């Protein structure tokens, strides 16, 4: 019944998609045929790890899809800029650029790392929270659920060694 109150959002092809930033900071869809802008639009990557820049899903507030964008290049420049900005702003996945040390304390590992966002100390609960993706990148998940990524081949030898020691 809740669904009846909120009409299905329009389905829009990437080329006709027009998204703008509202005064309240959120995104809104300008329906192709004109009419009231639809506020509360969200964007999500379908493959955040394997192909982050293709297949972007544009959805309404209730999570129903408005448009699936296989390639950002299909969008109009303004919409593309807003969507790209939103994708960057809504994510916080620091890239680890150096691992200073890892200390074991009972059941918690304390990682002292340098990220592209600044230095930070991570508290990692389980050995399984450090794992390697098929492409070689290492993902570290801290106790709060934060995600940190390292590309071993880009690190200094010492960091790489520590990472290798901790990675199952």
């Amino acid at each position, binding site marked *: 019944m809740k669904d009846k109150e909120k009409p299905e959002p329009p389905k829009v092809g990437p080329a006709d998609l027009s998204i703008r930033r509202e005064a309240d900071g959120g995104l809104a869809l300008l329906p192709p045929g004109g009419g009231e802008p639809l506020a509360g639009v969200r964007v999500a990557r379908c493959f955040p790890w394997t192909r982050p820049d293709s297949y972007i899903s544009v959805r309404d507030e209730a999570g129903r899809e408005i448009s699936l964008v296989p390639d950002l290049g299909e969008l109009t420049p303004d919409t593309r800029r807003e969507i790209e900005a939103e994708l960057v702003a809504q994510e916080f996945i620091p890239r680890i650029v150096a691992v200073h040390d890892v200390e074991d304390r009972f059941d918690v590992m304390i990682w002292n790392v340098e990220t592209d966002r600044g230095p930070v100390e991570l508290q990692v609960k389980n050995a399984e929270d450090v794992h390697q993706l098929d492409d070689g990148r290492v993902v570290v998940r801290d106790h709060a659920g934060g995600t940190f990524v390292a590309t071993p081949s880009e690190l200094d030898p010492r960091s790489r060694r520590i990472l290798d020691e901790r*990675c199952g």
Partner: protein
Amino acid sequence: MVKFLKKRLAAATGPFGELPPGDVLEVSGGVKPCLFALADVLPSGAYGETWVLLYERELVLVRRAAGALSPAGRFELKTGLSVKIAEGAGGSRFRVVREGILAAELRFSIRQAKRFSKLLHVANARIEGNAEPIPQAGEGFVDEEKTCPKCRRLVPEWADSCPYCLHRRRILMRLASYTRRYPLLIGAGMGAAVAGTLLQLVPPKLTKVLINDVLTPSPHRNEGLLWPLVIVTAVVIVLRVALQKVRLKNLAVLSEYVTHDLRVAVFDHLQKLSLAYYSKKPTGGLISRITSDTDRLWDFIAFGVTEVVISLIVIVGAATVMFIEEPVLAALTLIPIPVSLVITAFHVRAMHSILGRLWAKWSNMTSVLSDVIPGARVVKAFTQEKRESGRFTNRSRVVADDAMNLHTEWTNYWPKLSLLLSAGTLIIWSYAGPRIVGGAFDLGSFVMFLGYVAMFYGPIEHLGMMNRMFQRATTSAHRVFSVLDTPPTIYTPHKTVPCGEFKGAVEFDRVSFSYDGIKRVLQNISFRVEPGEVIGLAGPSGGGKTTLINLICRFYDPVEGRVLVDGVDVRRRDLHELRRNIGVVLQEPYLFRGTVTENIAYGNPGASPGEIIEAAKAANAHDFIVGFPDGYDTMLGERGQTVSGGERQRLSIARAILCNPKLLILDEATSSVDSKTEMKIQEAIDRLVKGRTTIAIAHRLSTLRKAHRLMILDKGKLVEQGTHEELMAADGLYAGLHRTQSELHSLFAV
């Protein structure tokens, strides 16, 4: 400087306590806020520091840039203002919107999310003019993870206090206090250990006497000593073996008793803890505390402690004797000992790290097995055998490759240790050899020294492992004690209200409940159920039906309001008496390992066979039970007789009937069974319900139609109440649900 900065940042981004830092407080006006949170990400995406402080009437932002604090915004909490959180991956944005215009946007990482969500909830309530109470940590709330007030670091889930900052010795003393109950065992065990070890030092000394005074041709040779020496040596050997037996036996028995005491204490205590505790801790973790942690402690008490003591006695004892006999040679011989201890300590550390990694790779490999073997049908159906083999081969090879490190490590360690200890032998040879030839050193002492040096191997190994062993034991002990130290949140009060005969009236008086202290799962619910009434609870999933039932059984206590049974607050009743009078038939009935009889009589173990059969008959279970080859003695549970979902249901109905509860809680299964079984279950339920107050979470239309009254819950609120007909006529939420289900039914009928 960099180090200092790093420390500061770690402190700022890390968990924090009850108050924001003092300087932030000063900038905001010096008054303690109701709630506060830290936006730890700058608009640019770098780590930064912006504090959000929530007061009674306003929201204050304070930013720290280049070490200096400055106010970054002040918003009065009144209509027209709204705060929102736009969630993202790994972090979110906190928005303050005034009259539809974005007034401030702050980014924060996920570790600050809980604080922000709490702050958002309260701030919005305040804007609407509600005096929303501040959620407090404590009963029924899953709050932020605990952090150590001393080192500000995360306290592991299983611990109450930071195991790192807690004095290790205190835990070990507490563990030791468990052995005090068995003074004889511990006295005999440790006494035998010390005596036996000291005796171990005797034979080399005897050898010296034998060689110098009996075997070496010299003027004061005393041949008469030969047999007495042999006899003394024999006695020493026999005595040593006997003492060893006494030690092993007594200490093994002692630690068996101690760990038994611990296991039972933990299990007993776990039974007293509320469901909230169980839902917070993973089952596997709880099981391992009772099994593997106590097992590790057994090992520690039985062998670990004594081995360390014995090793110390051997090394110190042998060294003492050597120093008394020949101080210079003793000093030279002992040179390799500290070096070997250091090498051993490093070896143990390296092994630990290698084993940890190997374990991770090993489990990576076994995960293929646990994936593919149960999924064999799918693998074959999609002809992916080759790929799965390849996956396994790769991971197995990784394990093998990594195991090489392990073998390299220990095959490197042993030769090093042997060489060092052999160096001791060589030192004795090179020092004593020339002197013996020159007549300045006696042969007996030479042989005695060789004997003592050989004793060093074992103890050095043990002492090298000592640190890790103590650490492991402390961790295990801490884990066990932290269960024992958790106070039960739901318990019978000291003064209970005597209730007389249980009638089965239930009343909710403005009840609100939340599992996490933030989201209200039940909101201000009030209703009354008369004895004997049958209530059908319905509504969309997530509406709060199961929570409501949990509160009646007092698995949880409400956050606000009261739950009354027969007019008495459940918190003032005797918990056991209350639960004894409530029968529960759950959606997924749990059958314990045991016979059918034991399962039916679970709540009433004293029931006679006649009563059990009676209950089974009433539940329409008798016929299928007798159909089992072992009848009522059929084993259920793992590796027992498999029972279908419908049979399971009827067994649990029989269980409830046998308890003869005045108040019945029914959680109807959603899964559909065939119509014949359905009918049988329905019949059984009809018999069960007769004469009892029943509160049923109902999905079957038939049950709903029969209920005296229906209560519809949606999003934690009681939205509709009345008979089936009344609700259908009102054409609200229930009517809608009913229509969908009828359509579904007619679909199946076709």
